[in-house]
């Protein structure tokens, strides 16, 4: 067992500071283990959100040495040993207390998005035939654990705070999941362009880099959605057809 120095942000919406703790670190320790040890032995009321400690629920998102990470999947022995490890709350969301942030905005955005709407079932028992190849596109997006690290890192939200007109990568992944579902009949293109503000994304791929599930957010979700927006909204031929049909949006 060896001792490692941690600097943990503590405070609330009025402000706070990094506080230093010496923590005994067992073999295989992840950052969340160290935070729990501080909580059990030194600061009983240290606020941290966590559930599964197995990388499956996406609750323990934080910034470790400045990078958006799941604390439960970040091993201490893989971080530089020669300097203290800093643990701070996600910066894109308002702080509640210590490492806990208010992520409720994400839930509000999701509830505003046009819901999944399936075509009529193929069989009397209410089931659909779908090819594995076709479901795999959406299955990639359905790996999302809603840790919101992609939201945290996205500069449109992090630096420009455009929460009121930009839904963020998590929600484009959610839309892509429905749009590419073989049995969905919904059309969310106008919504993507307007309320969800996909145009603000300038594909820097930061979201893809931090995704703990390895979802290729930019290439597989955002770019195809942007293409749909361009095709439907700006393609002159498509616009003409729409005008003639009288179903313009």
């Amino acid at each position: 067992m060896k001792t490692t120095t941690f600097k943990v942000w503590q405070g609330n919406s009025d402000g706070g500071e990094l506080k230093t703790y010496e923590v005994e670190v067992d073999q295989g320790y992840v950052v969340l283990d160290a935070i729990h040890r501080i909580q059990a032995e030194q600061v009983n009321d240290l606020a941290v959100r966590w559930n599964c400690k197995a990388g499956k629920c996406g609750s323990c998102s934080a910034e470790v040495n400045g990078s958006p990470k799941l604390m439960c999947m970040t091993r201490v022995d893989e971080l530089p040993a020669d300097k203290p490890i800093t643990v701070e709350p996600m910066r894109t969301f308002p702080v509640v207390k210590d490492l806990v942030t208010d992520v409720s905005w994400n839930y509000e955005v999701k509830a505003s998005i046009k819901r999944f709407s399936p075509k009529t079932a193929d069989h009397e028992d209410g089931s659909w035939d779908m090819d594995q190849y076709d479901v795999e596109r959406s299955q990639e997006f359905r790996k999302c654990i809603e840790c919101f690290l992609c939201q945290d890192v996205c500069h449109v939200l992090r630096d420009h705070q455009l929460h009121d007109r930009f839904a963020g990568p998590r929600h484009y992944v959610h839309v892509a999941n429905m749009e590419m579902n073989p049995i969905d009949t919904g059309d969310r293109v106008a919504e993507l362009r307007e309320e969800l503000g996909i145009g603000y994304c300038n594909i820097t791929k930061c979201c893809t880099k931090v995704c703990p599930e390895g979802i290729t957010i930019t290439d597989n979700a955002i770019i195809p959605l942007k293409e749909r927006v361009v095709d439907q909204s700006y393609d002159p031929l498509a616009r003409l057809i729409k005008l003639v049909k009288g179903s313009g949006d």
Partner: protein
Amino acid sequence: MTQHQVLEYDVVVIGAGGAGLRAAIEAAAKGASVGLICKSLLGKAHTVMAEGGVAAALANVDDRDSWKVHFADTMRGGHYLNAWRMAELHAKEAPERVRELEGWGALMDRTPDGLINQRNFGGHAYPRLAHVGDRTGLEMIRTLQDHGIHEGIDVHMEVTVSKLLMDGGRCAGALAYDRELGRFKVFKAKAVVMATGGIGRAFLVTSNSWEYTGDGHALAYEAGAELVDMEFVQFHPTGMVWPPSVRGILVTEGVRGEGGILKNSEGRRFMFDDIPPLYKESTADTPEEGWRYVIGDREARRPPELLTRDHVARKIVKEVQEGRGSPHGGAFLDIAWIQEHIKDSEDHIKKKLPSMYHQFKELAGIDITKEPMEVGPTTHYAMGGIRVDSDSQMSTTVPGLFAAGECAAGLHGANRLGGNSLSDLLVFGKRAGEYAAEFSAGNTPVHLQDEQIDLAVQEALSPLERDPGADVGPYRLQYELQQLMQDKAGIAREEDGLAEASDELQRLKTRAQAMGTSGSREYNPGWHTTLDLQNLITVAEAVVMASHARKESRGAHSRLDYLDKDPEWGTVNLVLKKGHDGEMELRREGIPEIPKELRKIIEEQG
């Protein structure tokens, strides 16, 4: 009078995992106003960790499957202590509950014909588990969440219930606090559905998430509900054992379903050494036959690694005790060996078991496509829970209180089959929501007395008013409880240990009731843990008392001093209830006779 917000609903659902979400969706669909209380953020509940699949006799992969076979498998797996009516309803309704998920956006893995694919699992006669790789629980909870948020349900995130409120003998709502600011909320409701999951956090080594502190079991018990089958705690045979910080994290049974084999330190496939008589006929004689089963040969019988969880867990413990364990006290689980049979085994494993690959790579530095995993038993599931009516899921003793999913009991008997928990929460979550809405519509409004609320608020606040330095603090006390339960009421139990555990629990209870905690009411996990401890100790007491009483070994309950099954105990459930003097009371209750047509099904299925 204390300050609190009052929220009124027809139906309040406590817990937002699979069962709670499914109940809320159904209650709302029946026209009830619904409040859904989650202890965490929405979509983070323990259901998210379920891996292998959801059991339903869709018969997409093997057309010999039917509800009858599923029913018989469930009863056999539960050593016939199951509430047979629940096992019947579950087997009949699971297929429809699974299919409807795809209408709400779920995307299960497919067969070559484009149907929902199904995989092998322990104790299931045919490939029966609909799945998405090894993240089926995530698929289900996200589907229910994304459907539920459009159904007019009020979701209360990060709100914890500290007490059920009563109107005479009838359940009338709940007192809760929000984590963020520690404000109290009174939920007034004509019907309450308990869907709080399990009790795994009472044990040291567990696959369960933070929330699994037996809240629903304890809250219902305090309100007068009966608990049943509490001696049956499932120890999943394959949890991670190394490094120490990940000990207990689940390794899905899907690994064995896909061909993974168990070996001891001598390289021996020890599961072939001891096949229980109940499964002799249906288990492979040779590794070669076992592999043929894995790849879908209908004539082959299943490999012994796919015997029920109680048996596999005990066999691993035996190997370790007899000195043939892996370096860190487990057994070797090898999926890499399938390269002998499958050319691109590396890709195959990564595709079938992506999160296992990821989990071992990240947390243990092991590449499961090349090396074996070290695994050992981990506390996984409570078969016992709130005793309910099989059809309606209403508590047998508290009108207006319903329960579904892991916190309810009956379906699984002495041992649960893998995959039956996800189908359980769909089938009985739906039923609980439906009957709660019906109860609400058919009954008069409830009345809550202020004194009752004031008292409950004072109880919840009391840890903040006591000296935090007087004892070891809430986390250490929880650790002591976990160590005690692990040692004395774990996978192998005996008289003296259980008696000691019972005494020690009384001491822990006294200490927990005197526990003080530092800090304010704002997002204070120390305070929350102090409150959780009360629930954990209540369920621990129930587990110990029932384990002490059942003097036989059956299913998940193993007594070192009563090694065999005793036929006399085979017709009896143990029921616990809070007595008039406030002490826990236990009684034996005979299982109602099974109807002739169901008995016939069991006999026909062997």
